[in-house]
């Protein structure tokens, strides 16, 4: 039972229902327009970002090189140095945004980011512990982050399990566990030598600097599997918005559906944090911006993915170029770019609704 009759309030006017067997979702003209505009902007940012740097390349040459042309020097700079970095930025942004959209819908709370599932804090503890205890092991940091994130999220889920998982309980327990873990991070930072504390602080701010093809492949694989999974849960998400009991009565197998949503959100966030550190703000702000641009009652998944890729790639471009001498961590810039935009949207919608 998936197709809802047109008289239900679930489907606002002007939305087309798409359904394939058990899975269904809706398309709104506004959402399509926002999505296409987002894709265009993302392509523009990507081309500018690839061309920009100590070795400047014209946009035409960038496109030519990407399509297989270009000189040997251009191929080296673009394909070996700049392309992996921008790809990681795009994918991390999309992963975090979709993870945030899933979490916010699942918890029925706009303040719920993947942090409340324990992923981000757990990953931070894994990475910071390695930096402080292990010293120089740069290659191990992503793995330590991945392990920390997944283990913490699993602990949250198990602790929240009592004859099934209630979304509200999961979120509160996630906050409690996250706090224990971030207390651990603080403790490591205080115990650390100042050199290690500074290094850990840099990692904690999140960065895609120095990304190469080694990071691109696992991230691409994760997204190829997880993004379709996320979209497949769209109907479930729509039902979950109304609360657990209504979702059950709409024919959702609640525990299974919740586990699928939480697993997808956790895996997406863990993949992103392992690749680039905790770029925390993206998961919160992008779904909220997408929701306000598209209308509707919950953050749209596909548009969130597009805008997430746009935000992180644009933030990375700013982070690379704003200071002549050094790079800013991209996590700082996402907040400095994204927060004012959300504040502006809030002010505007406030005015409009009165």
């Amino acid at each position, binding site marked *: 039972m998936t197709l809802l009759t047109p008289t239900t309030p679930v489907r606002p006017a002007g939305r087309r229902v798409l359904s394939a067997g058990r899975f269904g979702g809706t398309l709104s003209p506004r959402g399509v327009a926002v999505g296409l505009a987002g894709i265009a902007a993302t392509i523009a940012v990507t081309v500018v970002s690839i061309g920009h740097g100590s070795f400047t390349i014209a946009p035409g040459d960038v496109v030519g090189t990407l399509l297989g042309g270009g000189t040997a020097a251009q191929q080296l700079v673009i394909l070996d140095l700049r392309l992996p970095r921008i790809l990681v930025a795009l994918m991390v942004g999309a992963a975090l945004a979709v993870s945030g959209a899933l979490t916010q819908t699942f918890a029925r*709370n706009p303040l719920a980011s993947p942090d409340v599932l324990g992923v981000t804090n757990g990953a931070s503890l894994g990475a910071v512990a390695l930096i402080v205890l292990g010293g120089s092991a740069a290659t191990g940091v992503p793995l330590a982050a991945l392990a920390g994130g997944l283990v913490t999220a699993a602990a949250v889920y198990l*602790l929240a399990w009592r004859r099934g998982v209630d979304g509200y309980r999961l979120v509160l327990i996630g906050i409690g566990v996250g706090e224990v873990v971030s207390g651990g991070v603080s403790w490591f930072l*205080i115990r650390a030598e*100042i050199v290690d504390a500074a290094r850990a602080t840099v990692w904690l701010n999140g960065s895609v600097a120095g990304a190469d093809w080694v990071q691109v492949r696992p991230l691409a694989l994760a997204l190829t599997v997880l993004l379709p999974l996320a979209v497949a849960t769209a109907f479930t998400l729509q039902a979950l918005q109304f609360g657990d009991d209504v979702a059950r009565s709409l024919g959702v197998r609640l525990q299974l559906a919740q586990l699928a949503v939480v697993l997808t959100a956790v895996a997406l966030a863990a993949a992103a944090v392992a690749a680039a550190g905790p770029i925390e703000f993206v998961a919160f702000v992008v779904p909220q911006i997408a929701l306000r641009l598209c209308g509707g009652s919950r953050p749209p998944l596909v548009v969130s993915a597009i805008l997430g890729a746009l935000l992180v790639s644009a933030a990375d471009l700013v982070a690379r170029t704003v200071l002549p001498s050094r790079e800013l961590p991209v*996590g700082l810039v996402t907040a400095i770019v994204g927060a004012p935009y959300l504040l502006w949207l809030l002010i505007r919608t406030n*005015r409009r609704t009165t």
Partner: protein
Amino acid sequence: MVTTLRAGRPAPVAHRPGRTLIGLVAAVAMAVVLSLSIGAQTLSPAEIWHALTDPDPAAQATAIVRELRLPRTVLGVLAGLALGAAGALMQGHTRNPLADPGLLGISAGASFCVVIGIQLGVGGLSGYIWFAFAGALLASLAVFAVATGGRGGPTPVTLALAGLAMSALLSSFTQALLLSDDASLNVFRFWVVGSLSGRDARVAAQVAPFILAGLVLALVNAPALNALGLGDDVARALGQRILSARVIGVTAIVLLAGAATAACGPIIFLGLIVPHVARSMTGPDHRWLIPCSALTGAVLLLAADTVGRVVLRPAELQTGIVLAAVGAPFFIALVRRRAGTVKL
């Protein structure tokens, strides 16, 4: 109060808020006694009583109690009351169980201004206090201004979203300042964990008036919060003046959380969990919830501070870390134990 009752589960207990309140006052008294007697040197209640009422200037106990433990204990009670009440107010005004007193941008604003203070070369805690206060005030004013778009005043959702966005923005500025300056980071990383140690009596005296004023406003705000909890339209129909209720609430939160953050650094997690603990004892009525949250906050903060003094003797473990290590498991157990959590 929404509770889900399923077969095989006990019905929720009847709340007796009056008894809870009396029990909590006793618990605060107990925590105060323990906080005065436990430390690097354990003192008997008789020695403490002697030091407080009839001090012998030559005795070591006198110096320990009057110079070190009394100011610290007073500050712990004040900050605990403040953060507990501020957390209950914040969750009430945003109707969001994930809200904490820092959500108005208070802790992010305070941190930002403290870093500026450090970089300007302001030394010592009593110097940072005013920077922290100024930052808390400016940040929360900005959040409130953004959230106040329309005639109805700020809605719970816009307050929460604007607060989180503003906090993230200010935290980023703070991090950007620290990135370029290891010396400031070295000072700041100890302030930002949150602690009661090393604060002399002056600090408690500086923030006490703000906290007391905030507590009065919080209690005044409680009946209005009960009405606002039914939704803005219903509250309006009941004759509630929404905007003035929100202004009083936000003012109280700024006074309480701003003063506590200024004195002890950001101990925000306390304000997030305490209302949940108190709500499980009192139910959703804010007239009981706010005083009980305040008292629970004082008990938890003093207990965490006392534990932090003894686990790593002779060194101390920062209160913020102890709270995470001790408060969070307690909170998790509470959430797990309750068949039907009180929903907001």
